[in-house]
């Protein structure tokens, strides 16, 4: 025992780790240590090497050079998640649960309790129920994973890790898909884990959260270790600067006033569809309209109904001044209306295909000449898109699943813009992407609006709604509770409408 220093000895240490994928170096001599009972945040832009470092710390990748030390002894971690047995658990961003099995079965997967040769279902159920009660999660051990929300699934992952006596818990953007309330619950759980001596590695792009929860922060940039500091010595601003290596003064572009007399391009009246009730709003040419509200308040459902992705029960939709029958996705696209999903991995991109077929998939009819796909036109479209959206790929032939989150998002944006829409709905434009890419996307949205394209931004991140939108509609439980303009667009006001404390009479 080292009594000489105030900090306890690290459980896991990465010492001068370098990693290359083939000829491409990703990490350059990075060091990081995780101590018992601390939250150690790992921050950096997309592509900075955070994921790679996490995978090395949990044994999913081997370092090209450098050492991993476990309890002070040099070691080679077993591959493919077997490091769990040593107490090191990685919770992947794309959660690793068997969707068709129950909570209880998932928690005990691979180490089922047995009695007399049969599964001890009762014992396992009680154990899981105990853990769920402790975490304050209102689901039953017999619920099927596929019936849970993403937030609940995340919690199940944590329960699973806790039940395995994790000493180190490595979490890749655990809060990216959580609402503020859920995040609070999550943080309470993290505090409890800390007290019990678990070391936690936490990756997040939400710097305020990092500031609030982390004890120490390690910053990576372009695969280099920049610094490891105590959280109390950093502010979100200084973190952002260290991440991008330059001053980040203009995260949000200057706001151009929308022309209040511009023609209406989209008018929705009394729309009823699954998950939404009596929704009315309108959108002008060149306007950026924000949709705020808690997760599950029906924001996505509104636009899935408008764009033909979900059935409509009743209501009228006027597009460019004339009433339209419910559209199919293809007809909406041809009319100039495009929806960009928030779920880029499940609904946005074909992860096992290359960039080119992904880019042109949405606007494919545009690339058809004499019944055949014009491959030359496709190639030049890709070159154009890579330049316009600054998509950075290690090599243009890799599959899209291997791109970083930020580059995937830019590619998805490029894919939707390929059909030259006049109205774009962007659902969670910056989910899980770094601050540099965020800035690029905000500027792009502002530029679109300046060109006369109307943009709807659905977002759970209030600063971005406030930073870029001309008007903000707030939803709660399937209804629009308020539409805010000008000075009324602030966190307080939005929160009160979203939480149901305030309601505007809209009709």
């Amino acid at each position, binding site marked *: 025992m080292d009594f000489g220093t105030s900090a306890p000895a690290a459980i896991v240490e990465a010492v001068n780790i370098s990693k290359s*994928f*083939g*000829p*491409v170096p990703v990490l350059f001599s990075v060091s990081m240590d995780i101590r018992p009972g601390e939250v150690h945040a790992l921050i950096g832009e997309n592509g900075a090497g955070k*994921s790679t470092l996490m995978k090395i710390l949990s044994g999913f990748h081997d370092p090209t050079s450098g050492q991993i030390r476990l309890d002070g002894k040099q070691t080679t971690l077993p591959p493919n998640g077997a490091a769990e047995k040593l107490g090191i658990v990685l919770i992947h961003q794309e959660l690793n649960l068997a969707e068709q099995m129950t909570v209880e079965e998932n928690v005990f997967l691979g180490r089922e309790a047995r009695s007399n040769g049969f599964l001890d279902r009762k014992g396992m159920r009680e154990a899981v129920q105990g853990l769920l009660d402790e975490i304050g999660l209102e689901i039953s051990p017999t619920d099927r994973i596929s019936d849970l929300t993403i937030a609940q699934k995340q919690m199940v992952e944590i329960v699973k890790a806790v039940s395995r006596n994790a000493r180190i818990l490595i979490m890749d953007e655990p809060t990216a898909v959580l609402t503020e309330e859920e995040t609070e619950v999550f943080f309470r759980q993290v505090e409890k884990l800390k007290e019990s001596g678990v070391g936690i590695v936490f990756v997040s792009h939400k710097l305020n959260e990092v500031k609030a929860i982390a004890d120490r922060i390690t910053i990576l940039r372009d695969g280099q270790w920049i610094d490891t500091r105590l959280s109390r010595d950093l502010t979100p601003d200084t973190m952002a600067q260290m991440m991008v290596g330059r001053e980040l003064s203009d995260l949000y572009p200057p706001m151009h006033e929308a022309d209040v007399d511009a023609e209406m391009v989209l008018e929705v009246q009394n729309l009823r569809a699954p998950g939404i009730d009596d929704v009315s709003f309108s959108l002008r040419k060149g306007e950026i309209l924000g949709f705020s509200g808690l997760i599950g308040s029906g924001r996505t459902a509104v636009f899935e109904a408008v764009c033909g*992705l979900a059935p409509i029960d009743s209501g009228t939709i006027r597009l460019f001044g004339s009433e339209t029958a419910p559209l*199919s*996705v*293809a007809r*909406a*696209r041809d009319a100039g209306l495009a*929806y960009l*999903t928030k779920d880029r991995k*499940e*609904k*946005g*991109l*074909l*992860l*096992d*295909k290359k960039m080119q*077929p992904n880019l042109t*998939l*949405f606007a*494919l*009819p545009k*690339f*058809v000449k004499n*019944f*055949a*796909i014009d491959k030359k036109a496709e190639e030049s479209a890709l070159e154009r898109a890579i330049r316009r959206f600054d998509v950075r790929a*290690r*090599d*243009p*032939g*890799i599959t899209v*699943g*291997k791109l970083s989150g930020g580059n995937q998002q830019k590619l998805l944006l490029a*894919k939707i813009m390929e059909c030259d829409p006049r109205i774009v709905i962007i659902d969670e434009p910056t989910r899980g992407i770094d601050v540099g890419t965020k800035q690029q996307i905000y500027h792009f949205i502002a530029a679109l609006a300046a060109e006369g394209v109307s943009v709807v931004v659905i977002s759970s991140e209030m600063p971005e709604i406030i930073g870029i939108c001309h008007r903000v509609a707030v939803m709660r439980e399937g209804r629009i509770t308020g539409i805010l303009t000008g000075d009324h667009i602030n966190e307080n006001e939005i929160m009160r409408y979203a939480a149901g404390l305030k309601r505007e009479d809209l009709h």
Partner: protein
Amino acid sequence: MTMMTASDDKAAKTAKRFSVDFKTLGPALALLLLCIIGFLLNPAFVSEGNLTNLLTRSAFIGIIAVGATFVITAGGIDLSVGSMAAAIAGVMIIVMNNAVETLGTGVPTVLFGCGIAILLGIGAGWINGALTTRGKIEAFIVTLGTMGIYRSLVTYFADGGTLSLNFDIRGTYRPVYYDGFLGLPFPVWVFIGVAICGWLLLNRTAFGRYCTAIGSNEAVAKYSAINVDRVKTLTYIIQGLCVSFATIIYVPRLGSASASTGVLWELEAIAAVIIGGTVLKGGYGRIGGTILGALILTTIGNILNFTDMISNYLNGTMQGLIIIVAVLLQRSDWKFGRNSKS
């Protein structure tokens, strides 16, 4: 930095070219190897007569397998093709026999029969497609059901025996299987035609791209303005149409249909598709590979006919081994991408 990117580009391009070549070459090399083995066992294997015979025999499975490539690429499966062929053959024979009084025994009757066969194929494909898409039933289950239905229908039509084509019509229809053009029998020409159309459709048109996208991820396809139900239904209709073509060239061969017509064709077609490198769970299809797969399967049977070393009854064993080896090889090929696994 620029230098590095440029060399990366080059490396990537070489790698790409290599992998493409490897994937196409795999089945081609296997076929070549089989042919060499065939020649060594019995030089008569490469006689013109045998090669023509081999190509004609592979036409049935090959044509059906081209259709199956579309269904499988789009993430579906069609188990009903063998029974469908038998049912179409049966109805076609009945229709032609009954048309003798009005249309005679000449070409019009045969054309009429072929027209009916095509309509039946399209209809049967549409039923499979509509049940999987609008009915939202797993393709495996739908086509397992229709497989049983079509098979029992042909048994019923034939009253448990054999349906035979009118002798005079048989004379008119016979050349479609036994005659040829430029030294190649007509079935081979149909096979070539279907293969070229299938290749163009899958690799050069938006429809082909849509099939691949749906097989790769249906939700992404839906959000990319693709009418998923329509494209999937069309793949089953293409499959039905291919079955019709195969049946049209099959009927004049024996001039009859029975409960044992087309038995296990569905498995041979699927095997041809898989040997050719198409991924069974969808999202990646190769028509060229499918053609080679069909040729490989027929060649195995043909070689066994030529030699006494292995009993002809072990044909299925050899085919089964080839399928398993083909899939194993495909998997080791995927390992090239291992280091960039995420």
